[in-house]
């Protein structure tokens, strides 16, 4: 096949000119398919720098903390031992969208990364509703700079240890730093800096009010009725602590806030793994194939590409020693690819299952799917019977009350819906993570804070780690912390920090 009439490159060495040429060619095709992206900033880095980027969990600028050092040592160790290759790319949800290319990559790999990150992920960041709601791509870099600076100033003023302690504690409850049902204000650095001082003073005043101990005559009587505080349970632990913890210094509140804001920035990524990776994989596959169809890359290039692509979407089966959960690349890629097929060549089954878009314009349908869902709802909407058959998905129920594990549904006509619902639920953050909320603060008494864990499917908390996390909450809150694990409105287990004295119970 002499299809490559005028290939962009023939050797596997890359150069800046070639990177640019590929980016142009890929960008052109991406625009033809209507991919709307932020401007791209492609940064070429060495493998050491890639390890640095890795260790800072994808933040281009991070404040200093030992846990990132641990992360780094971990990456370095396994990389040096050859246990793992580095990811081909890291891409940052910012405007311009920053993508890292490693200098060790071949030309093919650079092109793949450009297609995957600069057009796939980038358009996802710009289009998906969660990212649009929760993150502000244009200000994140500024905010991270502010955060890093603020924290290093605090270290100078109050000592590294004091700052580290607060950060440790905040990290422990970082997953509880988001109001799921409220839209946040976009973060802007300038504003942050301007308002920060003001906020410090204002906050402190409010807190002093809340904890006022001098009795106030006219209020005294009404309080007999005992209003619970907070009136509604609070799911955003970090926010509540930032605003209401009685003993924190203003700078400590600011650090809590920083961790909360960063948690918020990562919140959409935790909920769109399958969609995001699937989308990027689908598009690198599609864009590179179009390059090939137009004779811009050689057969050799394509072979190398297919090999990488195949290993990216490899899904070991549940009983394989390599099995490590469902590969989000595979699942996402399969769903999008099948969605395209359903639009272009719908079968009778597809028409039954997806009457709304079987036979519609695939570019528009995929765009719609990318923009308006998160993993949970995306799977519920678009996982087709064919994908379930291809991946041979089956559903098991592991109930500790039963002596055996039951297979409740498999990839057949009776099981499709059940499997799909179960898989969707598996991606629901609310099911994956223990549901923990602030239930009550004893404002007039010992100032203790009470948390409730609403059990889901009777799943208990891991005791050891729960006890550890309570210590951290205790550090932030400053008074006793209680955690009740609740099943059907009944407390089944309780944790306390500090541990209650033996005689009392």
């Amino acid at each position: 096949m002499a299809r490559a009439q005028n290939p962009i490159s023939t050797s596997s060495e890359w150069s800046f000119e070639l990177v640019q040429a590929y980016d142009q060619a890929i960008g052109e095709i991406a625009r033809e398919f209507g991919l709307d992206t932020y401007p791209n900033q492609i940064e070429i880095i060495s493998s050491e720098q890639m390890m640095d980027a890795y260790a800072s969990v994808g933040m281009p600028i991070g404040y200093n903390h030992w846990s990132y050092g641990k992360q780094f040592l971990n990456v370095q160790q396994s990389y040096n031992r050859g246990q793992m290759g580095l990811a081909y790319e890291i891409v940052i949800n910012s405007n311009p969208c920053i993508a890292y290319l490693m200098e060790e990559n071949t030309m093919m790999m650079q092109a793949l990364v450009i297609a995957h990150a600069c057009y796939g992920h980038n358009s996802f960041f710009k289009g998906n509703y969660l990212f649009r709601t929760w993150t502000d791509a244009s200000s994140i870099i500024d905010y991270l700079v502010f955060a890093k600076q603020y924290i290093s100033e605090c270290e100078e003023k109050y000592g590294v240890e004091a700052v580290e302690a607060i950060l440790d504690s905040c990290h422990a409850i970082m997953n509880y730093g988001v109001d799921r049902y409220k839209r946040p204000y976009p973060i802007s650095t300038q504003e942050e800096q301007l308002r920060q001082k003001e906020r410090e003073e204002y906050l402190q005043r409010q807190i002093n009010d809340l904890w006022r101990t001098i009795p106030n005559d006219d209020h005294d009587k009404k309080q007999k009725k005992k209003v619970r505080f907070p009136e509604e349970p609070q799911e955003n632990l970090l926010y509540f602590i930032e605003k209401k913890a009685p003993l924190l210094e203003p700078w400590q509140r600011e650090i809590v806030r920083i961790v909360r804001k960063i948690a918020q920035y990562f919140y959409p990524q935790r909920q769109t793994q399958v969609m995001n990776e699937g989308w990027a994989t689908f598009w690198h596959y599609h864009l590179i194939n179009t390059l090939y169809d137009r004779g811009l890359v050689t057969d050799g290039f394509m072979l190398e590409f297919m090999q990488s692509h195949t290993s990216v979407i490899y899904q070991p089966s549940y009983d394989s020693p390599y099995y490590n959960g469902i590969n989000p690349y595979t699942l996402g890629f399969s769903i999008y690819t099948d969605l395209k097929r359903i639009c272009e060549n719908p079968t009778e089954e597809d028409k039954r299952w997806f009457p709304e878009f079987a036979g519609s314009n695939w570019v528009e349908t995929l765009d719609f799917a990318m923009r308006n869902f998160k993993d949970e709802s995306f799977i519920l909407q678009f996982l087709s019977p064919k994908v379930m058959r291809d991946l041979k998905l089956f559903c098991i129920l592991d109930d500790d009350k039963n002596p055996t594990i039951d297979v409740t549904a498999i990839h057949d006509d009776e099981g499709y819906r059940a499997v799909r619902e179960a898989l969707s639920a598996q991606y629901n953050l609310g099911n994956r993570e223990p549901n923990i909320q602030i239930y009550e603060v004893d404002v007039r008494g010992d100032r203790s804070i009470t948390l409730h864990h609403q059990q889901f499917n009777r799943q208990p908390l891991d005791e050891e780690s729960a006890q550890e996390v309570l210590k951290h909450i205790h550090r932030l809150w400053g008074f006793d912390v209680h955690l009740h694990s609740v099943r059907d409105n009944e407390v089944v287990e309780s944790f306390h920090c500090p541990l209650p004295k033996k005689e009392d119970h």
Partner: protein
Amino acid sequence: MTYIVDRRLNSKNKSTVNRQRFLERYRQHIKKAVSEAIDKRSITDIHNGEKISIPAKDIGEPIFHHGQGGKKVRVLPGNKEFVTGDQIKRPEGGGGSGNGKGAGNSGEGMDDFVFNITQEEFLNFMFEDLALPNLVKRHLAGNTEYKLHRAGIANEGTPGKINIVRSLRAANARRIALTGGKRRKLKELEEEEAKLLNASHPDDLLRLSEIQTQIAELRKKIQRVPWLDDFDLKYNLHVKHPVPRSRAVMFCIMDVSGSMDQATKDIAKRFFLLLYLFLQRNYEYTEVVFIRHHTSAKEVDEQEFFYSRETGGTIVSSALKLTDEIISERYPPEQWNIYAAQASDGDNWNDDSTICYKVLSERLMPKLQYFSYIEITAREHQALWTAYEKVLEDFPQTFAMRQLVSASDIFPVFRQLFQKKVA
């Protein structure tokens, strides 16, 4: 719109601070691992880093997660044999099938956290509490060195330091100041003179001659103002700044005589190796002199000191005398902190030991900051040890001696000898 940026030249050690923080936090664990490693490994491969492993539960970052139990629904890929309604026996041990919820948190597994520290870090941990004795004391005693720094311009100084430009500028200014008024007067008179030159009126002539004498007088006065005066002279000023002195020289003295068997030499070598590494990292300006001796002493380079073979009888004093000679030739005690360490198996010609005592206590010890002696032997002490014990009595602050039996004693003894003394 795409920008391509080459970042490869940017610093690549962005994680260094975080790494350091991690090491700091787990200091105790790492120190323990390091000292265990020292016990095990031979000191000749001290140049490597070390693999440190820390129990994972000690460094976990706790988060809330689900524990075992309850009802779990899971979707898995790759079904081969199951149909709806199948009942599978639970795997033994109750662990569920491998992908528990805890898997998301890398700190929760039971494996140890393993990582490498570099040689430098390894040595840092190893030498942490050690310091060369008395260095600070000597420094505080005031035997400081000075360094000249430029400190602007002064009115006094030696001729060699005259600042010509500034001196001439000052002279110029003085001349202008002193002659300004006279010059103005002179100018006026000269103008008047020019007008009167062609006059013929006797009054005018009288006036002219009057003016001319005045002019001559003024000129004389102006001329009398010196072109350069004593107080015009400006000198470059240099002031002395004390420089802290951490310049040290270490004499390593080793017996390589016939009585030293290979094992003993090996231990001695290791001791010096340790010492040498220690010096290299603690003091920027440290010189090391290696002296090996049997019946006669010889100054050698490092390579030869550790690795060449030679045998013969034993006269310890030869090495001590050579040390003294080298000190007076090259290392004046007022400029150098001098340390010496000697390793031997304790063998010496009997009548030489008294000479050793004399050389040490009379000539060497007054110049030295510290002298440490290690005797590598499992046998009874001999005359040399007794002689040195007398030195120890005379110089308890600056003389130290220890006995080593096996290689495993090296590090503890080394630490003892060079323990940081709490002031």
